[in-house]
């Protein structure tokens, strides 16, 4: 799993450079994410703009990263494809995790307050 990370103010932006987070790649994603988020800011923005689809294993991996971050740090998602949105909607995960339309919206002050 290719991850690129970059600090933006109080946020760490992690960009996934793969077209799927699925059964075949979920474990790798989880491991690489844990490595990427060590010692970071409060907010981790996961940019999924390159990701076309995700399955329940990928979803499980994202939950596992959230568990790893614990109660004090937050994982938020950015730029979901139609298909990825469908998976978040079907599992009602869209009600418990913050999802931003794009990176600009995610880092603007209003979003920070939400």
């Amino acid at each position, binding site marked *: 799993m290719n991850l690129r990370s970059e600090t933006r103010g109080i946020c760490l932006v992690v960009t996934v450079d793969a077209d799927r987070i*699925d*059964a*075949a790649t979920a474990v790798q994603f989880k491991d690489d994410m844990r490595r990427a988020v060590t010692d970071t800011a409060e907010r981790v923005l996961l940019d999924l703009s390159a990701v076309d*689809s995700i*399955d*329940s*294993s990928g*979803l*499980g991996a994202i*939950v*596992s990263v*959230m*568990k790893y*971050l*614990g*109660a004090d740090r*937050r*994982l938020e998602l950015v730029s979901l494809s*139609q*298909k990825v949105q*469908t*998976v978040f909607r*079907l*599992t*009602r*995960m869209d*009600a*418990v*995790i913050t999802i931003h339309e794009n990176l600009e919206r995610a880092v603007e002050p209003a979003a920070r307050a939400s």
Partner: protein
Amino acid sequence: MPPENHARQDTVRASAAVADSRIEISFEATNPAARRAIRSIIGQVEPGTVSQEDIDVLEIALAEVFNNIVEHAYQDTGRGQVDVAVEMRTPGMHFTIWDDGEPMPAGRLPGGAPADPSLDAHEQAEGGYGLFMIRQLARKLRYERTEGRNRLSFRIKLSSA
């Protein structure tokens, strides 16, 4: 692999009316083979006849079902055959899927569960979403353990584009 061919026997039984709307696909229980099988099934849809949203739903449902077989029924051994019978029955596709792996827990299809809005994000379950999605997307979902095989059947609605 013991390919006792129940899929084929069903074909013969069902052949009269639906024969030429039915295709069977078999693959080894690995993630790459499952993905190719999904593309192969989606490829059967006549281009331009079905909305992209319905194609997405078809892809999501099949991925969850096949991944469960690879991971749970065959326990990620990468060995074992998956047989799929696909029937075009307007307005949808009907699937019957067989494997020779482990049965479902307690011999029944688990319910699965969605995210729990009363809990924080980091307190959500890491599993169970697969079956919850399958149950939401598939109609006439039915699981049976017969003659040492798992048999799952369901229908996915496909409305016109």
